[in-house]
């Protein structure tokens, strides 16, 4: 039906791309899970609960990806999210308890959450772009710092007592589509347009592949890097809002397992850890893969420690396949 000759070269190239291979892996895993547990994995309940869980992780992965593209990394991403949700949540629950209307407290809470995440981003951005500290170290320190501030506010406990209107954000669906998913799709589209269709996005790729040359070609690398960390942290703040709303509380340790998973998702999706390379669609497919595996293995009742083993193995295997295909192409050329 589809003879090789009739395929247009463009289509052929696309089908051979990293993203296509990744999507194929996703389909295989999805089918595999469905066969393993047809009644429960394919149930509406499971599909919906995946759709509620995926957005916060997906947004964190996109945030991580933007930073990695510039040649950096953000180890403080989950603590940015939790510090933001704690600052906003603290104000929101106090205002609400103090007699302010639910609408006003939610509004102030969300604004403070976004502002808090921007403040974290400004801190990281300043240290990295203007002082010149390597991203891994700057964010390593920031991670401990943000965790400390969060603990200082919460005293190790969780902040709760949010208005029901806030909790609805993460727990309702419009026309059957969960609100977090709608927010995720919106964020996804924005990040795509920003990274792959805007002038500044192109600049970030340039910075990632060679910061020195980028600077000599007249681009303000420092300013661009600073803005990168602002944007990435804002995304973390949005993920924080979703988490706080879904869990109905704010705590410094929420989502801490997402840190390494976010790096994995970006890298699995084809983002080069050295910077300068990576596509939004790749990261999204990787996020889908990780979500399907963790939900699927959870449903078939695999020990949760073994789930980690499987995740690690998949990361290694996919990267090995990447290496082998690259090697083959190299040899053919």
């Amino acid at each position, binding site marked *: 039906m589809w003879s090789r000759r009739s395929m247009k070269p463009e289509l052929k190239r696309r089908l051979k791309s990293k993203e296509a291979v990744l999507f194929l892996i996703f389909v295989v895993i999805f089918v595999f899970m469905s066969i393993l547990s047809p009644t429960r994995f394919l149930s509406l309940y499971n599909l919906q609960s995946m759709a509620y869980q995926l957005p916060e992780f997906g947004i964190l992965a996109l945030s991580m990806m933007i930073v990695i593209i510039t040649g950096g*990394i953000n*180890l403080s991403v989950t603590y940015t999210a939790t510090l933001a949700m704690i600052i906003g949540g603290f104000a929101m629950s106090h205002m609400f308890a103090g007699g302010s209307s639910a609408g006003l407290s939610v509004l102030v809470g969300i604004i403070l959450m976004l502002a808090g995440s921007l403040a974290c981003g400004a801190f990281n951005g300043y*240290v990295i772009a203007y*002082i*010149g*500290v*390597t991203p*891994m*170290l*700057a964010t*390593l*320190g*920031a*991670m*401990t*710092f*943000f*965790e*400390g*501030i969060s*603990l*200082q506010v919460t*005293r*190790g406990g969780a902040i709760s007592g949010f208005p029901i209107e806030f909790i609805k954000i993460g727990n309702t669906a419009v026309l059957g589509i969960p609100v977090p998913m709608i927010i995720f799709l919106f964020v996804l589209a924005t990040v795509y347009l920003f990274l792959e269709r805007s002038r500044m996005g192109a600049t970030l790729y340039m910075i990632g592949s060679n910061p020195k040359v980028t600077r000599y070609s007249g681009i303000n690398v420092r300013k661009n890097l600073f803005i990168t960390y602002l944007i990435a942290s804002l995304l973390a703040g949005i993920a924080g809002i979703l988490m706080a709303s879904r869990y109905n509380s704010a705590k410094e340790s929420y989502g801490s397992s997402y840190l*390494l998973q976010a*790096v*994995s998702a970006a*890298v699995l999706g084809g983002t*080069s*850890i*050295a910077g300068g390379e990576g596509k939004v669609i790749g990261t999204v497919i990787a996020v889908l893969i990780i979500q399907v595996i963790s939900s699927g293995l959870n449903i078939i009742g695999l*020990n949760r*420690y*073994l*789930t*980690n*083993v*499987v*995740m*690690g*193995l998949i*990361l*290694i295997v996919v*990267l*090995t396949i990447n*290496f082998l295909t690259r090697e083959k192409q190299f040899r053919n050329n």
Partner: protein
Amino acid sequence: MKTKLLKIKELPIILILIVISIIISVANPAFMTLENFLDILKSNLVLAIMSMGMLMVMLTGGIDVSVSSVITAVAVITGYSLMHWSSNLLFTILVAVLSGTVMGLFNGLLIAKLKIPPIVATLGTMSVILGLVLYITNGTWMTGIPEKFIDFGRKKLITFPTGDGKALGIPIQFLFLLVAVLATWFILRKTVIGRGIYAIGGNRDSAERMGFKPDRIIIFVYAFEGFLIGLAAVAHTSIMRQVDPNAFLGFEMQVIAAVVLGGASVLGGYGSILGTLIGVSLFCVINNGLILMHIPTFWQKIVVGLIIIGSISIDMTQKKRTERNKTRVDVE
């Protein structure tokens, strides 16, 4: 003399260490006591041993986030070997060192042969190894280490008599640290591999053209790191007298932070043993000092985070200044 002293690369961090030590001892005189120093030494030996391996990895431009899961795995294997195979000390060390080296070798092969970026490869091995260990042990503590081994762990190298009849001493585990430091020093300073480590960290392509074999050197570095983790695991088990599979959660960040505080560059090619040891000391002194100064635990993380960022920033501005001076000379 004065200029020579100022040229020591580690000077800024030494000064920071001195200033912080003075602040702590003013706040609490108990800091400047032999007992406290021996305490710091004993509780941070493992960190110091592991920082030597991490230093070598970072010199090649790599990083290893799997160290905490590797030491957990080695400690569990060591504990099992002690309880079920033999409580012979040499045999125990051999088992630990071998299992550590094998795991390190695996990392090295992934990184050198399959060209997987170090942070990603070790991320993968971390979740595989830790997942397996927690699955097998179910996260529970292993107790019942043989008395013979515990007695070994209680030994002191040198004892100092104290006024109240108690004797303080340098713990026997200090020997492990000594071996780790000397071995690292020997490899880095006295062997061709050591030159190669600095060379590929500085510029991989030029190193290759000079005749170094980057793949082999990288595999060696990760295997050696695994070897050191084996030593660290024996030291840890003999100090703690039990194995807790959750004892090292997040420990990799501490090791990396200590090495980096010591002035090693994450980009590779830059870093020294002296610097790393001072970095580890700084890290330990801060942690110890915060407790001695009765700073609430919630503040401790804030202070540690700020000190990490602060001292690296100071270091960075220092480097920038020297670089600027260099170019000025060139222009003239």
